[in-house]
């Protein structure tokens, strides 16, 4: 088990910078998810932590000790790859024992450890099979087993579930969470699936274009996104966005006016706000209510699931369609016009110059 | 049996663990990625010793004279080796040259190359086209035609020497048909014919295979379209197959030229060292004899001849690379 600190981590391939001044603190035993769009550098970050890739500058600390120059084995990490990377020419048993044999461990201890891991992961019936003869889920378990047997300080997962079908993915998600509870080892988990991140992780790191956008608890990221990128990235369907200008600044918040949706008074810390600044307003689909009067919306598409409804429609003066999520059944027809109400205390305001959010005044 | 192999494997594994130790040390010193240097090193050492160094030495020796083997004991004589080799009254007439054997070899090689390359190309092309028509038995005949390629030059030389011998099967057949018994390999023109014939026999299968691969790369639907138009098979060959195959054939032709220029092994065995007289003495044999089997070992002269041949081959290789690039479009 180990606490991990990344200090001013920088990575450059030839002439391209792929990680910029990354700083993250991971506590001992924490389950951390790295999320971000494809190509943002999640895998690179994981490989830097693992030691498979050398860092260009900065420091990586495990339990306060700099490990920059240590090999993956010396860092005592274990890794589960997206492709599983099982050794195709070895049986399941050999796959599990290979890492331990490399450490010149005693045969008896090796045997004991792989038996334990195999039992934990239900792999006993397959020990003499080659990976070719296993299903996707079984291969996945072998890959996890290979990580477990080495009693690593840190588990690293690179999108381990993306090759499984939807049902198995949900199931394995639960198993990995259970495993974490049981082993209580630090785990770093890369995914592009935010549901995975939100449900499994204790802490989420949002990465974008080689920079850390925000680090926080799952709900924090949802409720208090630090900037426009996080706000739009976390949450599904995506947050609705409107252009507006600041018309009034006071200690209780700011007032904004938008051509298409009108005026709102929003309770945010207003220190950096100036009248006349242009801002972006964000409203989550689930924070939109239907009302008798308000902002008119012409419905272009309806998705009724029975217990919930997604409404897509256009507001005059807005190029992009709006999405609203209602937690109940709603009767309407495409082409109907309905009226919406936004609750201003759930609205997010982002400064257009910096893309940073104005912090909410907490009550 | 299984136990035995497991036992052998465990011994091998133990041994490899020993070999591993120093590499682990090196890995610690230089880092993971630079271990690549360690892995190419043995190969590079051998390439350096037996290819790169010799290339340098060949050029160096070509400019030195004398009979000493060590380069520092050899006097520098500039272009003298080359000028002696090229000193001719007329290049058309070997007898007018200072080294008439060299020019005889050049003439012989030139004619051999021309005939062998043409012959092999035509034969291989016909065979490949015929094989490509087969729907069944293609693999069998491909193997039959390829088989001689795998034989050694000594074996090929001896098999044919026996076949063409005074008491050989061919003479028996000739006699049976009312012909005259001939010692084929002792008559200048017959021996030249048979050297080319045996070379074609020996190497044709290799080129057949390459041309066949080219033929199989031609999309089937082109032929189907032609068949719908009612084009005869003969016309198909001239109008479709040959044009589409031409880039391939050009590459093969140059490869053939390159190989032919280096003729030595089987001809040397077949003709007892280039006979009768010098009728089948080729350039490589000249180099070999000059450097290794004459009383006075003229390494400088042999190297100069090697360099000249190397330059000719280089030119052909460059043409081949250029053609191969063009064939890929």
């Amino acid at each position, binding site marked *: 088990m180990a606490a991990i600190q990344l200090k001013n981590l920088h990575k450059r391939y030839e002439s391209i910078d792929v990680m910029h001044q990354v700083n993250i603190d991971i506590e001992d035993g924490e389950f951390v998810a790295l999320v971000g769009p494809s190509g943002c550098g999640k895998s690179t970050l994981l*490989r830097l932590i693992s030691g*498979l890739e050398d860092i260009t500058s900065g420091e990586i600390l495990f339990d306060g000790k700099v490990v920059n120059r240590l090999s993956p084995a010396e860092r005592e990490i274990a*890794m589960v*790859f997206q492709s599983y*990377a099982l*050794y195709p*020419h070895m049986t399941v048993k050999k796959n599990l024992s290979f890492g331990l044999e490399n*450490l010149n461990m005693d045969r008896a201890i090796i045997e004991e450890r792989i038996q334990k891991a195999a039992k934990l992961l239900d792999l006993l019936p397959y020990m003499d099979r080659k990976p070719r003869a296993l299903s996707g889920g079984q291969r996945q378990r072998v890959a996890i087993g290979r990580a477990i047997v*080495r009693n690593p300080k840190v588990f690293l997962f690179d999108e381990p579930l993306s090759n499984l079908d939807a049902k198995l993915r949900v199931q394995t998600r639960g198993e990995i969470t259970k495993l974490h509870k049981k082993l209580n080892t630090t785990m770093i988990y890369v995914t592009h699936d935010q549901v995975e991140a939100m449900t499994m992780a204790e802490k989420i790191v949002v990465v974008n274009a080689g920079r850390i956008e925000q680090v926080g608890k799952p709900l924090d990221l949802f409720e208090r996104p630090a900037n426009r990128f996080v706000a739009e990235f976390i949450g599904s369907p995506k947050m609705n966005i409107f252009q507006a200008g600041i018309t009034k600044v006071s200690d209780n918040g700011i007032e904004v006016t938008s051509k298409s949706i009108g005026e709102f008074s929003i309770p945010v810390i207003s220190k950096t706000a100036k009248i006349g600044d242009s801002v972006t307003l964000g409203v989550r689909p689930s924070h939109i209510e239907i009302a008798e009067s308000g902002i008119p919306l012409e419905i272009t598409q309806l998705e009724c699931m029975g217990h919930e409804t997604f409404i897509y429609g256009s507001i005059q003066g807005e190029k992009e369609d709006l999405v609203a999520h209602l937690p109940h059944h709603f009767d309407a027809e495409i082409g109907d016009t309905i009226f919406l109400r936004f609750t201003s205390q759930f609205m997010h305001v982002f400064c257009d110059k910096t893309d940073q959010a104005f912090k909410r005044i907490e009550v | 049996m299984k136990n035995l192999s497991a036992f052998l494997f465990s011994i091998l594994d133990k041994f*490899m663990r020993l070999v591993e130790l120093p*590499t682990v040390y090196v*890995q610690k010193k230089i880092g*993971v*990625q630079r271990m*690549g240097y360690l*892995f*190419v090193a*043995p*190969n*590079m050492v*051998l*390439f350096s*010793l*037996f*290819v790169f160094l*010799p290339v340098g030495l*060949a050029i160096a*020796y070509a400019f030195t004279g004398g009979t000493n*083997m060590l380069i520092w004991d050899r006097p520098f004589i500039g272009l003298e080796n080359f000028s002696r080799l090229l000193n001719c009254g007329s290049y058309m007439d070997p007898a007018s040259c200072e080294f008439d054997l060299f020019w005889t070899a050049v003439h012989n090689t030139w004619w051999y190359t021309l005939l062998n390359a043409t012959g092999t190309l035509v034969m291989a092309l016909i065979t490949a086209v*015929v094989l490509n*028509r087969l729907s069944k038995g293609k*693999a069998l*005949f491909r193997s039959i035609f*390829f*088989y001689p*390629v*795998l*034989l*050694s*030059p000594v*074996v090929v*030389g*001896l*098999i044919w*020497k*026996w*076949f063409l011998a005074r*008491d050989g*099967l061919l003479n*028996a057949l000739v006699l049976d048909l009312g012909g005259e018994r001939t010692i084929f390999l002792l008559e200048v023109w017959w021996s030249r014919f048979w050297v080319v014939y045996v070379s074609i*026999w020996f190497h044709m299968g290799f080129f057949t*295979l390459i041309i*066949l691969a080219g033929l199989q790369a031609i999309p089937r639907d082109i032929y189907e379209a032609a068949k719908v138009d009612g084009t005869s098979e003969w016309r198909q060959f001239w109008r479709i197959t040959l044009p589409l195959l031409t880039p391939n054939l050009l590459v093969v032709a140059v490869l053939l030229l390159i190989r032919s220029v*280096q003729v030595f*092994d089987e001809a040397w065995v077949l003709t007892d060292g280039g006979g009768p007289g010098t009728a089948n003495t080729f350039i490589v044999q000249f*180099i*070999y004899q000059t450097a290794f089997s004459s009383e006075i070992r003229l390494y400088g002269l042999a190297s100069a001849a090697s360099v000249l*041949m*190397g330059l000719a081959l*280089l030119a052909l290789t460059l043409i081949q690379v250029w053609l191969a690039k063009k064939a890929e479009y």
Partner: protein
Amino acid sequence: MLKFLTRTRRPGKMDITDILSWLWLTLGTAVIAIPIAWAMLSSLKTQAEVNSFPPSLIPQSTVSTQVEGYDKDLSVWEWTQASGETKKVALVRRIGIKATVLDMEKPEKTFQVPISEITQLKDVHFQWSNYTDPLERFDFFTYIKNTVFVTVVATILTLLLNSMAAFALSKYKFRGKNAIFMLILSTLMLPLSVIMVPAFIVIVGLNLADNLWGVIFATVATPTGVFMLRQYMLTIPDDLIEAARVDAASEFRIYWRIVLPLCAPALAVLAIFSVIWRWNDFLWPLIVLSSPENYTLQIGLNAFQGQFSVEWHYILAMTVIALLPVTIVFLVLQKYITEGVAGSGVK
């Protein structure tokens, strides 16, 4: 067989092109097979028969028999009498055009017949001693031993060294990697015949002249092998190697335990080629080796045929020995070989 041969794309109908193709294939097969078959048949004949002309097709030997009262075996002949009747007789002696023979049923009495009336009886006989004599009386056993040694050692080294280089060139990032790869590929274009003189001088410098190791070392680094194995290794996912690194395997161990086993199919193809190349090598061993106890089979055979050019029965038997291993390898593995050649354009 005929039906099988004539089956072409349009079953049922034979036109002129089909007939011509068929003719070409049969003729080609005959041209290839006859000289080889002839050498094989002749290799089993007695010396006397090898040297007789016109030659007989099947290896035969004369029939002889023991007759009481005669120290030596007598040869058996068939006597065609004037009446057309034939009778088996044993030849006692020959004087001019008369032969003294005895009737085998009544061996006590000899009589004379004209030579033109008797023909010698022969039966099929394989002279296996053609194969065993050279091994015992000449150095062929040594030659074979040397060739096997060179072939085995060179093939093992070829597999090891070339796969190591291929591993470096396919799975590592280091400065000069591409330059090294190009350099290795460029040697593909450089034939031995151009550099044989200085290469031999290098061998002399290394004190490996007239030494089997001199033959081996110069041949084990092959650009073809490196190229072939590198192409194959590029298909092995990098993840596997990184997984092994995480699993605390050293780079050498990754090579030995992960990469090498996974390359088995490509290694097998290279091994087949290497065995054939080394078994057949001629020019290079001819240059390096000078004393008969170091000759390989090809060199020894060539030297023998130069020295004992009348002993065709031995020469041919040893020729067959020299082509046998390659033939067997080809019969068993022809698919891999022809596909390997067609795929990579090497031989």
